[in-house]
């Protein structure tokens, strides 16, 4: 087994064995190839049933697999020719018209597009030079991204964030449940084994997913900042989670802030002696400010450009120009010089705004 095959096998294992979501999608694809347009429709065309959301989720895992392989290629962690079996499978799945429409038009994500081009022989260059540093950063990214990607709780929260509902609950119910510490505790500490069907109720899953997501954001931001030396890789890492980060910017960022603000209001609890809690409260304030700052920076779009530009340079096809318009961010959120880290005074002013 070649080095590339062994390495690809490890990524494959994560998405097809540790979590079998990608395997489920492949099975659905094999059974329904050519007739997937209904299942893989936009949710505003016709609402999605609970059963359909699980099947569609499995396609998201499959796209996450292709995306992670693409990030690995751009990091130089996977070098040389990809194994034939992978190339054939990726070409077949990513080239299918119904599947393409899903990840290009309905829910545009760039990494599967970049990977399709790669397996068609038009891959982006990794440009990481001496790869050791970039390889280590990829390994960090892989570890960081696994829990959030394979967590059903995070998936539920993100689905709610996207305007979806499940079991009659949605994003408004999530925020409402965060308003009081007792309902927060009920949902945040719920366990699947507490329920007859051994499944978390969607609202509890969404609350727990929200908590994982806000804890994840500062870590992702820190990693992106450490990857500044490799702009294309940095951008690819952002794009791996980019769909949701973009959604936060365009539609739901305020919802996440509302959720965090709902928690801050608990400060006024009866019975505590405030002078003994000063350090602790300050620490909590700093943590939440960091989380808000991370969410604001991650959803600003500043990390999206390198991959967009790389793909534009690769091909000036009209279809792709149309794709890239999906990734425009509002002027206020997108800084003029996207790859530079924010100037200190900008960061300070963001912090001050978030703390206020």
């Amino acid at each position, binding site marked *: 087994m070649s080095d590339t*095959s062994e390495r690809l096998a490890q990524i494959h294992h994560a998405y097809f064995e540790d979590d079998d979501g990608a395997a489920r999608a492949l099975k659905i694809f094999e059974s329904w190839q050519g007739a997937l347009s209904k299942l893989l429709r936009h949710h505003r065309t016709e609402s999605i049933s609970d059963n359909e959301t699980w099947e569609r989720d499995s396609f998201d895992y499959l796209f996450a697999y292709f995306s992670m392989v693409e990030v690995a290629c751009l990091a130089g962690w996977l070098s040389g020719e990809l194994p034939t079996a992978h190339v054939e499978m990726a070409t077949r799945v990513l080239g299918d018209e119904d599947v393409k429409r899903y990840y290009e038009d309905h829910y545009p994500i760039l990494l599967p597009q970049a990977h399709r081009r790669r397996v068609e022989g038009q891959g982006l260059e990794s440009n990481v030079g001496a790869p050791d540093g970039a390889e280590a950063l990829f*390994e960090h990214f892989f570890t960081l991204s696994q829990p959030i990607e394979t967590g059903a709780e995070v998936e539920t929260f993100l689905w709610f964030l996207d305007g979806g509902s499940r079991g009659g609950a949605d994003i408004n119910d999530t925020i409402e449940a965060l308003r009081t510490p007792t309902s927060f505790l009920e949902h945040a500490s719920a366990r699947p084994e507490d329920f007859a069907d051994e499944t978390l109720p969607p609202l509890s899953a969404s609350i727990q997913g929200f908590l994982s997501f806000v804890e994840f954001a500062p870590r992702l931001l820190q990693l992106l900042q450490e990857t500044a030396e490799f702009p294309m890789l940095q951008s690819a890492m952002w794009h791996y989670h980019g769909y949701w980060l973009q959604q936060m910017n365009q539609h739901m960022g305020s919802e996440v802030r509302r959720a965090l603000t709902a928690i801050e209001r608990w400060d006024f609890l009866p*019975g505590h002696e405030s002078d003994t809690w000063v*350090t*602790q409260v300050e620490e909590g304030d700093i943590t939440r400010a960091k989380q808000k700052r991370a969410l604001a920076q991650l959803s600003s779009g500043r990390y999206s450009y390198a991959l967009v530009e790389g793909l534009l340079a690769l091909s000036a096809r009209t279809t792709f120009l149309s794709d890239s318009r999906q990734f425009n961010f509002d002027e206020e959120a997108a800084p003029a010089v996207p790859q530079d880290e924010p100037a200190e005074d900008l960061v300070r002013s963001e912090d001050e705004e978030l703390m206020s």
Partner: protein
Amino acid sequence: MPHHLSTLLRDGTGQKWGRGSRGRFAEMPVPRGAVVFVHGFRGNAIETWFDFPFRLPKEQKAADYDLLFYGYDSREQAPYSARSLNLFLRAVAEDPARQIVNPSLAAGLQKRPDTFRYDHIVIAAHSLGAVVSRLALLGAVSPQRDPLPWLSKVRLVLFAPAHAGAPAVKLASLVFMGLPVGSALEALARKRYKSIDDLDPAGQTIPQLRTDIQQFLASAPANVADCHRAWVTHGSADWVVKAGQYLQDNQFLPMNGAGHFEVCKPTQKDHRPLDFLLGVLP
């Protein structure tokens, strides 16, 4: 790179170990040792330890160690979690190839021989994880109640350990994202998180743990008793546990400016948690 990508840990029957336990296995066929990371109250197998999964593999000294991030449910009583960890540690010590490494590795990667054993097992534990780990080690006994011989391979490295207990009101506030809680919410938190009562300095578990370790230190062979002579670090800004000398542990390393959660998280700017652990690896 000297380690494979992280993967879920599975036993010989394919069942997952603990709660979200993951490992990064050394690429070399026969590594010398394993580092078993055990998180604390409301922690998580991997996230408690960031950036250890990323920074430790880059260190030459860690190249021939498997990195095992064990997860458990801190809502459970500490002795319950300890029993589960005890079973995991027995697998690590007695049958690692068949019970952990080979079932967890991706297909196509080189498997370890069934006879493979670690020379060293380093347990790195944070906060409540220190109590769970010490209880798990105390439970490593033969049917005749003798300590198992592999305990002589174990070194215990503790970050902000809660082995002397922690105030329930502080732990309850952790349940509520660090915000202050009154007595009603504290009671609710204690009901949901049974391990809070285990950390009560005046409860049953903490005093009994101290007594049991004292007896162990007095009666076990010297090389076995060493597993409870821990290396310890405390942060100066910790508001959850109090720093102090515990039984025959090594004198603790003060980590200036570090809080309860920073003390176990090496970063690009702060290598102290990493250096502390590396200093203990045989």
